């Protein structure tokens, strides 16, 4: 076997322990820190954009070209290099083995490689800021022909490095994804059936499957575009006259790229949403001291969303000039996918109902998530319904939609997750007062940023505009609103440093944590040591006897029963008894 329990001796040197580590927990931390670092770059870029939009002309160094480069890099960094990496590489790596009761991922070496390849992808991405012409400014969707023709910033080097970085990232994501999926399917501990797994694992697992199946489309689209750019092929390039010059291309289809991109892109948005769904389910259940409502439905909803997400992609293309009859198919599938999502929302809310709600910091973030997600989700319904999308597409309404549902909601879930699991990772608690402050500013601040933005979209303000001056249909008040949004964005961004400070400070000075500070049932809280050591479980693997949500069980002494606790006198012949009896 690739590794067994007995090969798990603790590595001795600093290098093997912290740098070339094959321990999933160390890799998780490496992933998380890298993702946060590049995420901060994305954050700074977003504020630069906001400065231009809020106070146009006041900051000379942001010219149109730079603006488009910021938009592009901001979008790409946030979606791929921050969220995907942090949720799968960070949370996935840390939580999967601990939550399913494994000693590590099934292929630790591959897991380590995955991180280093990811780091390489990030470095290539960062390098594109420093090449002649700067990074690409084609929008994160990288639509050709524009992405590779003059008139767009960064068409010499920027776009090539961007595509190269994406291809490298895909390699990393594939190596990681294979590990996560195989670990969940094949390496659970005794008694841990799929239907006893915490929803966090379900979310990350399904997202990993989506990643394995969706990234290929991006890979193919990226390869074809690289060839169009470097070898003069015409996959996406029809006959074109660019800046007065006729190019040698002939017969290609720009729509093909869009189809491939969104065949990847839509599953991708669920890749970042599903893990967040999972995390939030666990946070709510734990801190409301109540089992998650309708666990089965939750699992099936995750699976259904994952499956359906492959047949809704062209809802991003209603105004792309594609075959108009596709509109019927994709509008229908898109609105159907809202049903399982709605079920998830109901079940979170119904978990609060008749619960015993502790408003701890993770819980605050989880509820903030629901509120943001519902707003972002229902605006998705506008966009999914083809005839409603047509006036709103490519306006700030779309920007507001996806920030609410992707920029805010999963980020809140991540913050909640970090406050929740930090004690397990470091053995210390994060400071609670700083945490609350961080929550209030982030939650209310982002709401103030994005709620009004919907109305700019109704008004008709197009997205990806460097400046809105001299447009008669835009009233001056819209400019004031933009300035207001910018101020909110600056404040919210500034307060993120409070969080970083909290992360660092608490690692050394935080209140020492007990091994199970929240009274949670899931396996990661039952490790013999906190933080868990290499191999996680000491001598013997845990054995699971119950689902992950035995909170407030009538008659039990405490208001939670860990998954490792056997049932008292389970009647013979039941599932329980079988699980016990099995060798």
């Amino acid at each position: 076997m690739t590794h067994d329990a007995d090969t798990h001796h603790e590595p001795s040197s600093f290098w093997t322990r912290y740098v070339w580590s094959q321990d999933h927990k160390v890799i998780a931390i490496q992933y998380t820190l890298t993702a946060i670092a590049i995420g901060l770059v994305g954050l700074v870029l977003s504020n630069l954009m906001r400065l231009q939009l809020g106070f146009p002309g006041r900051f000379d160094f942001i010219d149109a070209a730079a603006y488009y480069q910021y938009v592009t890099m901001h979008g790409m960094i946030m979606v791929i290099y921050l969220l995907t990496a942090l949720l799968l590489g960070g949370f996935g790596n840390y939580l999967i083995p601990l939550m399913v009761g494994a000693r590590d991922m099934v292929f630790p070496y591959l897991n380590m490689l995955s991180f280093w390849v990811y780091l390489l992808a990030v470095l290539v991405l960062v390098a594109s800021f420093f090449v002649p012409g700067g990074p690409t400014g084609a929008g994160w969707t990288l639509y050709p022909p524009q992405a590779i023709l003059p008139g767009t910033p960064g068409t010499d080097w920027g776009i090539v490095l961007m595509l190269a970085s994406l291809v490298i990232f895909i390699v990393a994501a594939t190596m990681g994804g294979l590990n996560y999926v195989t670990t969940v399917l094949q390496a659970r501990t005794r008694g841990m059936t799929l239907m006893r797994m915490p929803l966090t694992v379900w979310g990350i697992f399904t997202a990993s499957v989506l990643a394995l199946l969706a990234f290929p489309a991006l890979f193919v689209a990226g390869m074809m575009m690289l060839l169009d750019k470097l070898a003069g092929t015409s996959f996406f390039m029809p006959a074109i006259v660019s800046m007065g010059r006729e190019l040698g291309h002939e017969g290609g289809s720009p729509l093909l790229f869009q189809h491939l991109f969104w065949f990847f892109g839509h599953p991708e948005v669920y890749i970042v949403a599903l893990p967040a769904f999972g995390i939030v389910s666990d946070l709510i259940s734990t801190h409301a001291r109540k089992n998650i409502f309708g666990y089965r439905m939750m699992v099936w909803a995750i699976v259904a969303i994952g499956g359906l997400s492959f047949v809704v992609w062209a809802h991003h293309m209603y105004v792309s000039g594609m075959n108009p009859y596709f509109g019927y198919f994709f509008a229908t599938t898109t609105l159907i996918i809202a049903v399982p999502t709605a079920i998830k929302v109901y079940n979170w809310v119904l978990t609060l109902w008749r619960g015993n709600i502790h408003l701890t910091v993770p819980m605050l973030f989880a509820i903030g998530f629901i509120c943001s997600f519902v707003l972002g989700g229902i605006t998705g319904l506008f966009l999914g319904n083809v005839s409603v999308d047509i006036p709103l597409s490519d306006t700030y309404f779309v920007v507001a939609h996806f920030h609410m549902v992707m920029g805010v909601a999963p980020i809140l879930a991540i913050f909640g997750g970090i406050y929740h699991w930090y004690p397990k990772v470091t053995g210390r608690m994060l400071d609670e007062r700083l945490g609350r402050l961080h929550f209030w500013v982030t939650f209310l601040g982002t709401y103030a940023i994005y709620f009004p933005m919907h109305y700019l979209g109704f008004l008709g303000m197009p997205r990806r505009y460097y400046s809105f001056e001299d447009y008669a249909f835009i009233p001056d008040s819209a400019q004031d609103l933009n300035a207001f949004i910018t101020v909110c964005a600056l404040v919210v961004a500034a307060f993120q440093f409070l969080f970083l400070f909290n992360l660092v400070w608490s690692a050394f000075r935080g209140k020492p944590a007990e091994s199970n500070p929240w009274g949670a049932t899931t396996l990661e809280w039952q490790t013999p040591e906190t933080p868990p050591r290499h191999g996680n479980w000491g001598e013997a693997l845990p054995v699971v006897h119950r689902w992950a949500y035995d909170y407030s069980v009538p008659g039990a002494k405490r208001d939670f029963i860990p998954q490792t606790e056997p049932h008292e006198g389970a009647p013979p012949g039941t599932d329980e008894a079988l699980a016990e009896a099995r060798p």
Partner: protein
Amino acid sequence: MTNPTSQTQSPPASATPGWNEVVADWAADRRVFQVSWRKSMMWIFLLSDTFVFGCFLTGYMMVRIATTEPWPNVSEVFALTMFGQSIPLILIAIMTFVLITSSGTMAMAVNYAYRRDRVRCAALMLATAALGASFVGMQAFEWTKLIEDGVRPWGNPMGAAQFGASFFLITGFHGLHVSAGVIYLVIVARRVLAGRYERRGDYEIVEIAGLYWHFVDLVWVFIFAFFYLW
């Protein structure tokens, strides 16, 4: 049970064939598929790779349908003059037969591996690798010939530019898979000969290498149908 991570659990006794069995497998603890970690990972990887080739072929199909330029007559382009007459697609036909043959030898290598017939297994694997290498060689020949005929990724004298582009991209990508497979096979065959798996008592790695190899053959079946026979 001393080593709880080792994978010697037998399938649940309650399993009956059909969908009940599926349900039982998915409901079991510890693992869903009754195969090892490595094998399940290879399967999942191949699934992902299926999507890669699926997207490549779909992209090729779409540009081919969409372009208004005439598509070169494939069976003429790939015709070879043999024995004084031009035979359409003959090289491709030979390549197809070679690849299928290699799949056959690979399948038998796997069979011998499980019979613990080390030498035959390794010999068959090496034969597979040799067939694979000759496939790549023929592909190189074909590329040269096409390049001599003036076919380039950016255009060709016979019609739509996408012909050369898709050809080089798709066969190139497949060729890379074959080449990687050849290297993989040679490495595993050497280990088989050296007795490494004998000592471990586990020849599964041969089967896994076989899975990969058959997949490469499988992809070729689709390329053959959609690229050469269209």
